């Protein structure tokens, strides 16, 4: 058994999730919001892999889910940054409070 208790991993993942949530909620720049999203996805990955290692050490279900999360995060980052670049070119801003032309 490893010397690190499972609760340490859960605590670190929770802290990282909350930091990402704070960055997502408070930042005005769309790219900074995206950085916060990446932090939250990473904290989910810590949980997937840690619970995989501690509850079913001889299976790899959690690691497979983490690989899927990483792939989806890559796709999401590519599309989001393309949208940000297109928005910047169209309206010359990356401030999420100014991008409100679809607001009802």
């Amino acid at each position, binding site marked *: 058994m490893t010397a*690190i208790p499972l609760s340490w991993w*859960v605590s670190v993942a929770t802290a990282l999730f909350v930091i990402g949530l704070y960055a997502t*909620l408070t930042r005005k720049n769309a790219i900074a919001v995206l950085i916060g999203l990446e932090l939250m996805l990473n904290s989910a990955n*810590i949980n997937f892999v840690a619970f995989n290692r501690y509850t079913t*050490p001889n299976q790899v279900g959690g690691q497979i889910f983490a*690989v899927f999360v990483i792939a989806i995060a890559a796709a999401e980052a590519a599309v989001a940054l393309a949208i940000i670049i297109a928005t910047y070119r169209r309206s010359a801003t990356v401030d999420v409070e100014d991008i409100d032309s679809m607001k009802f």
Partner: protein
Amino acid sequence: MAEQIVFFIFTILVLGGGIGIISTKNLYYSALFLSMTLSGMAGYFVLLNAGFLAAVQVVVYVGAIAILILFAIMLSRRMMTSSEPQTNRQTWLAAIVSPLLFIAILVLVLQVNWPVSSAAPTGDALILLGMSFLGSYVIPFEVISVLLLVALVGAIILARDTHTDTGREQ
């Protein structure tokens, strides 16, 4: 004991990077702190006996996503200079809600007695991963490849300059 010291070092990398992201006003530094956090995550994966994920983390996150974010920051740099405020009006509310959520999740999660298995991992996780990807998880695996292709094409179409007035960038 040695594992705990390594864990603390990577925790300093991960959480220090996170704190740096939310505390710095310069977006460029935020992206550099993000790559620091992602590197620490790769160390976590090594500690958790997931060497393949550590390699994927370095290649995909640090090598691709962080660099992509840096490119996007440089392409839209002039709009958000670090002199103007980088946070919106929800800052105080978020500063109250986020620690409360942290405490709530932690209290809930630490109460649960997780069925921790004391068995040491046997065999090569990489072989197991490969067998699973082409075995019981083959359909999600193929769907994810289609998703990546769609994201690739979509990103190119979205970011392509349809007008010819690129002179505004200069």
